[in-house]
């Protein structure tokens, strides 16, 4: 790509991607396009909004149907262009710019890869069958369709697989693709395909999974290559490029990788900033059950195992507890059991690590409900989602300790039995706060901030009264 001055409008277009895949490029090679400097940054930021939006949606535990809608919306809003013919260009350019930015470290690569793959997967779903076929051609898949003879020999097994998933047996004209099982790990894990002699037989409606895996492995390889090339280029770049150019692009590239565009609870809201003395009070009033349980256990045992420390620690960070107060909080509890010295030696490092002050300096984000629900607490662990991981007996006891009345309790337990753990938590919230929570609980910090929103105004007004009374 060539970076040109704003006056130039030429846009040569001859990417082989576009010729074979009009709507969903595979980003195999950087196209010979000319990009205006302002587009360089703005295209990338628009795409970044889409990727961050996906990231946000996933961490809130959105279901696949919701994610589909979200992706469609995000793409429509951010990736359009005044000239219809430029839409594809913007798509391709923005991808490659972000690739340059996000190839530099392992963490960035991992994040970029996950989000681009999720984006690809949902966009693939929206394609027409012909367009999907075209993508599959690009991956050499159409030639791996199962012929009639083979189909006949395995028809019964294919039928068993379909019926095991509650689907009808495949008809005579159903298309199946025979691919090495390594290419469809998701389908293998869920026993959703028939596997024989190392090959998986993938149905047409499962092709998304296959294509997504192939896209992912392709992108993963090129990202690492891009990194090596970029390192080499940068060396050549910085030494041979004109001073002006360097100062134009480098800051943009640097800024892009650290910009964040939405709430992920890594930045606490103002009203939610709590200090050490507030914790006991807000724990009773505004913590969701999972955090309340951890908090109570910590006060009781003066100890928590690693999973619990992570889950509660990051939650507290999201709620607004700063590093100094966090250290004081954990120190106060742990030193009662293990002593001051051992706390400093063994535990304080991890707390600082959570706040991004040690090691990789990653500023960890608090866990979403999805993540907590899917965790697997073992013996001695207190983390996880009580609605999922507690027995009915224990859960009832915990809920009544929180103050949930018996009628609400039954509704909550009903949700739990049907495995709607987040809905159960939402009902608990509603029972305790006397108000509905339409959005539903997707994140413990969301529970906390919503709770504070309801309780705070009352708090403020009572403080006001105090002030006026004094006067």
């Amino acid at each position, binding site marked *: 790509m060539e970076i040109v001055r704003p006056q130039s409008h030429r846009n040569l277009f001859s990417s082989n991607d576009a010729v074979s895949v009009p709507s969903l490029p595979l980003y195999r090679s950087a196209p010979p396009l000319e990009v205006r400097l302002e587009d360089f940054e703005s295209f990338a930021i628009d795409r970044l909004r889409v990727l961050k939006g996906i990231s946000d949606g996933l961490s809130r535990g959105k279901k696949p149907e919701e994610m589909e809608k979200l992706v469609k919306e995000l793409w429509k809003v951010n990736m359009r262009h005044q000239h219809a013919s430029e839409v594809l260009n913007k798509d391709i350019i923005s991808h490659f710019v972000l690739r340059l930015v996000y190839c530099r*470290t392992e963490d960035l690569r991992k994040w970029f890869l996950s989000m681009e793959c999720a984006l690809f997967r949902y966009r693939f779903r929206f394609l027409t069958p012909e367009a999907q076929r075209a993508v599959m051609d690009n991956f050499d898949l159409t030639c791996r369709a199962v012929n009639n003879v083979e189909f006949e020999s395995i028809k019964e097994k294919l039928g*068993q697989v379909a*019926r095991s998933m509650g689907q009808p047996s495949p008809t005579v004209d159903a298309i199946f693709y025979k691919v090495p099982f390594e290419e469809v790990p998701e389908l293998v894990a869920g026993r959703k395909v028939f596997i*024989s002699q*190392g090959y998986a037989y993938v149905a047409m409606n499962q092709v998304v999974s296959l294509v997504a895996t192939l896209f992912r492995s392709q992108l993963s390889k090129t990202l690492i290559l891009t990194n090596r090339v970029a390192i080499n280029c940068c060396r050549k770049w910085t030494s041979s490029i004109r001073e002006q150019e360097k100062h134009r692009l480098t800051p943009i590239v640097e800024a892009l990788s650290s910009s964040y565009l939405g709430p992920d609870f890594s930045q606490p809201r103002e009203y939610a900033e709590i200090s050490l003395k507030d914790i006991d009070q807000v724990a009773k009033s505004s913590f969701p059950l999972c955090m309340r349980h951890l908090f109570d256990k910590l006060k009781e045992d003066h100890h928590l195992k690693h999973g619990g420390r992570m889950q509660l620690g990051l939650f507290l960070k999201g709620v607004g507890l700063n590093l100094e107060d966090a250290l004081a909080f954990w120190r106060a509890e742990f030193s009662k059991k293990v002593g001051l010295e051992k706390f400093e030696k063994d535990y304080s490092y991890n707390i600082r690590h959570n706040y991004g002050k040690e090691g990789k300096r990653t500023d960890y984000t608090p866990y979403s409900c999805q993540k907590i629900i899917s965790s697997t607490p073992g013996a001695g662990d207190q983390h996880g989602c009580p609605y999922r991981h507690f027995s009915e007996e224990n859960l009832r006891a915990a809920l009544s300790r929180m103050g949930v009345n018996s009628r609400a309790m039954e509704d909550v337990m009903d949700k739990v039995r049907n495995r709607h753990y987040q809905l159960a938590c939402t009902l608990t919230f509603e029972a305790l706060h006397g108000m509905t929570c339409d959005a539903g609980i997707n994140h413990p910090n969301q529970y906390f901030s919503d709770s504070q929103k309801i309780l705070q105004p009352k708090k403020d007004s009572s403080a006001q009264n105090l002030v006026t009374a004094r006067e």
Partner: protein
Amino acid sequence: MGRNRLVLTLRNHLVHGKPQGLDIQGEIFFLSSCHHTCTSSLYSFFIHFSSCKSSSIFIQMIPQQESDFDHNYLKPYYGKLFPFADIFKWMTYGHDGKHPGCDQSYFGRREFSFTLKGDFYLRFQSFNNALELENSIKEKCPLKIDIGPVYTVDPAKRHAYAQGDNNVFAPVERELIFDIDMTDYDDVRYCCRGADVCLNCWPLMTIAIKVIDTSLRDDFGFKHILWVYSGRRGVHCWVCDGKARRLTNEQRASIADYYRVYKGNENSHKKVSLMGAALHPFLATSYTNVLKDYFEKILLTSQNLLATEERYEKILSMIPDESIASELRGKWQDSRRSSSAKEDINVVRWEQCKQLLQSGKHKAQGLRRCVEEIVFFFTYPRLDMEVSKHMNHLLKAPFCVHPKTGRVCVPIDPNQCDEFDPTTVPTLFQLLEELNNEGLRADVNGEWNGTSLGNAITLFRSSFLEPLQKACKEEIERSYNLKLQQSKNSVGW
């Protein structure tokens, strides 16, 4: 009898296919079948045997040890018996330097780890050749030897390569491994708990081997599979095909999940859930070919799964239809002794249970697969997911000696796994005694040949190592020729 308390270690012996459970410990070699009863008194037990009519009973009494293991005995074990050459041949996977296509660095990039006496743990041990491996083990006498993955570079030099974010020290190859442990079945076996294992519950391991081995070959197309006795209460599986060694963590996890059926902990209730109008072909085949028969013909009776109220309640609790459960409960509560004492009560009750569940009269939700779910719950393999999912997971090497039992981790032939008996696996003491008895014989094959270890090593070589080496050599040659061809083409005139 002497002042030392002589304790007989008795082996459960299969007579007419029915296991005879005996409480007293003693080592007895039955040369002819003889029905006997046991008494609690040691002396009277002895008397009973000596008065037994059959003259071909031979009793060997051995003094009871704390366990059949003593660290000092590892030295002669490693000195004379441990098959270093075979382990080396296996681990080189054909890269022995004899072919120009060999990767000379391959063996040196493999991680070994040693657990030494006093719980010292040495990780990231690596060796350039067989001699270095042998000398290090003989010198250190590890209680346990673990095998890790092959890394990008020699593990001993890893610090030089781990810089910042771009970690160049990473695993590149590792066998696909499985670990099946009897303690994971504690809720379905009544004969033993925890670390104990007997011939009544060992069939659970046999089932696991059959189901997983068949699937690894038929479904995934793997060919070079080694099953090893873990030394106490389980089995390990090493899948060594090139394709398997190069699997990513995600792919390993997907295979482990493919095999996962039992899900749960002490808080959850239903641990096996088979939904859908049909079973996945893999589950269906396993059920028809292995699980059903083992459940109905062996485990039902040997574990007395329906004989007492406590036990049948456990199964009744798995039936979602309360009316069926109460009907069965009614039948069983009354009939303490059924009219025909000939047929085993467990078998009779299971038939009654099946009839009601499969009659089609009750079409309640969740009833469809109830019979299968019960069978799967009691028999289907339970793998340790974490072991299989990560390339860097270490696993104990075959031919180690288990420190708690003294037994050698010998290979198990999957085709004859029904006949494998964990209680007759050679122990450290036994082997050294055999060595002493044989005298100093410099056998070209190694001194193990005259001992009970001979069969184990022969099995290792013939059924696993030799076919594997052949395949590896072919692969090396093939890819070498391919490279030659490619470079010729690129040079091309």
